[in-house]
């Protein structure tokens, strides 16, 4: 059974039709990616999954339960978390407070303490900067805190919106290694990316979104080999 699923989703912003009959499913422990150009509706898809946008028609299914009209907190409580586009830390709060907010809905103190240790292990730098205002962190450090904050909710599926955006090329590589590492711990990951080559090199499966429609749905290898995709998305540089 899929962990998280979109069934025939149509989403409008006002009268504008953004997502058109989108179907996708994320299975437990999978690493999948959603590719697409600017304004194709990637972030909207992600927000629909998390419940920050309510679709006009269609269903969002979590663990077989239809949660289309359930709140975001309901879904977060059940293991869905996101790392937002541009990281978006709570800038005037300290790193520690940011991490604590990641665990906002949890009440298991021991579990939280454990996960905090896990984050420190993964990012020793975060531990050094615990009392610093997060807005003053460098871009790379902010990325660590953003991922750490998401992990603090002990997610089963992590939704990442363009995790490599705005990172230095050297950091992009590290970042993807990190995503794989989190994936290996058993967390399902859903990456939204424009950096198609990189995303497909670590993903199991992927979708390609074009003006709100899923135009390709295949395994990562097949997508990498797909001539259409190569022509329109991968190009020379490998990014859109």
């Amino acid at each position: 059974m899929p962990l998280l699923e979109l069934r025939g989703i149509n989403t409008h912003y006002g009268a504008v039709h953004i997502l058109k009959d989108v179907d996708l499913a994320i299975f437990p422990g999978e690493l999948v990616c959603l590719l697409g150009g600017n304004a194709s509706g990637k972030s909207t898809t992600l927000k629909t999954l998390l419940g920050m946008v309510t679709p006009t028609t269609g269903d969002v299914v979590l663990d077989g339960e239809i949660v289309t009209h359930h709140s975001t907190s309901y879904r977060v409580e059940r293991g869905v978390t996101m790392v937002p586009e541009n990281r978006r830390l709570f800038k005037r709060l300290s790193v520690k407070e940011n991490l604590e907010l990641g665990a906002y809905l949890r009440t298991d103190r021991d579990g939280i303490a454990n996960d905090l240790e896990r984050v420190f292990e993964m990012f020793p730098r975060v531990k050094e900067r615990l009392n610093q205002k997060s807005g003053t962190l460098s871009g790379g450090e902010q990325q660590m805190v953003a991922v750490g904050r998401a992990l603090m909710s002990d997610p089963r599926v992590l939704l990442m919106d363009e995790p490599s955006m705005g990172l230095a090329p050297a950091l992009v590589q590290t970042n993807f290694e990190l995503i794989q590492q989190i994936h290996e711990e058993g967390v399902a990951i859903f990456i939204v990316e424009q950096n198609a080559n990189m995303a497909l090199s670590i993903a199991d499966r992927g979708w390609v979104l074009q003006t709100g429609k899923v135009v390709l749905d295949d395994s990562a290898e097949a997508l990498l080999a797909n001539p259409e995709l190569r022509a329109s998305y991968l190009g020379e540089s490998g990014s859109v």
Partner: protein
Amino acid sequence: MTATANDASTFEAPGLDWRRQIRFSAIGALSCAFIALAGMPVGLDRRSIVYPVLSLGYLSLFWVPFVLASLAGSQVVLEGMGERERDTRDLAAGALVGLGSALGLVGLMILVKNFNLRDPLVNWSPQLLELLSFNRSTTLGMLLWVVLGTTLGLLGGAMHVVPAMVRAKILTVVLSVLIVSVLQTFLTDLLEGFRLEVFTDFIYYKRGGLEILGALLVAVLAIAIPLLVAGRIKGLRARVQKMPPDERSRVNLVLLGVGAALLLVLPFFLGKIANELLANVGLFVLLALGLNIVVGLAGILDLGYVAFFAVGGYTTAVLTSPNSPGFSPELPWPVALIVVVVLTGLVGLFIGAPVIRMRGDYLAIVTLGFGEIIRLLFLSDWLSGWFGGAQGITNIPGVDVGIGTVKGTDPRSVFLLVLVFCGIAIYVSWRLEHSRLGRAWMAIREDEDVAEAMGVNTTSTKLMAFVVGAVLASFSGAIFSAKVGSIFPTSFIMLVSIIILVVVIVGGMGNIAGVIVGAVVLIGVLGGPKQPGLLQELGQFKLLIYGALLVWMMLKRPEGLVPNVRRSRELHQEEFLQDAWLKGEIDEEDPS
């Protein structure tokens, strides 16, 4: 980054920035002319600071050259940069700024003497010219200003040349004299309570201000007292610092208890005037603490906060006064308070529900509207059968507390009651700030969408902020009602919202201690919208000063007067630099 922090200077500090000095001269000239034309020197001349040499009126001008000269000379020392050697050029720079400021006045004097612009500028008057000429000939007056301005500027510049210790001493003396002079009513009242009138009789001039000898005595004490006790306090501090954390927190708790106890006995040593003043201050502390939760913690810019103060006040009046025109159950105040809290909380929900869907400027405008609507409802003929319209509700009884009655004619009892409620409000604020709810508020303040993505129920969380804020305001309203004995719609004008907001901003949004200090200083010294402060003479200039303070704070110290302990711990020099460094990058990344 830390490795280089302690290295010797790697680049030379830039020299004295003359353009900055000239810019500040111009600011000084304009400020002086503006203050003079706003009428402050003439209007405030009656109140002495040091009798007979310095009046509040002259002080409103004298501070300009001094403060601007020292501001112009201040320089941020960056990491890796040696501090510039200070020399006589700094004195010259200060003198220049002072002279510039004085020239603003000299120019104004020439204009006032030769032209008549009295029509648009009411203060363009012979009295102004006379005052600016120190009651001598205009030419002599101008000369005196040049000399005075230059000297004060020179002193301002000298602040950077003298050793830090001397600077600290000078500032202590100047500030002590000013503060003691401003606190005249309060201190006279307080010392009378201890039968120490001799002291205040000696230092103060009867009609306001310190005597010269008194000022000297204050100056001597300001230097002597720190010398006598500084060592001991440092020793105690160090000892507390060395204690294990739980013992230290116990010491803090004891100190807090002692402080609270002192505050509770304070009213008994104060006379009517001081108690009245502090009761008013306390009412605003309550309001400011409530608004601090809404604006400071949850980041909801509520410009109609007075609405809840009004609902609290009117509900109390209706429920307790025998003169309530419609419904008049004449409940005792404590019982009424329960109804008041519930009802105001509900009004908070009712106003909050539509408002919290909005964000930013829209929200601010709508709350402003709601604030006015509530006042207009109380004023309206339509509801005058309930609230008495413009006649308001009179004959509101005091609070019967068994051993006596809290009522306006006995300010001591009011102050005590206010203190109790302030205690409750502080405790509630503090607990909330460190609670899960408090954290959710801060998350929403920082980034509402992301807060939602973390699982915060933003709707109910924001509503909670509205309700808690409303309830704290209703406490204030309920006490206010019992204190003044009769209430009218005019007590709840928009200005009240604005003043409370200024108090919160100046004190430091989201900072409990700051907000309290802000309320005590601003309301205590300047006064509230209708309530006089220590400097009663300020009267018409009160709002001007509030406005100027607000602008200055927003520009220079957006974090407020009292630095947040938690925040300032985080903001070391290093991070300040990083902040400046990263600003461009972060702003680019996140356009929202």
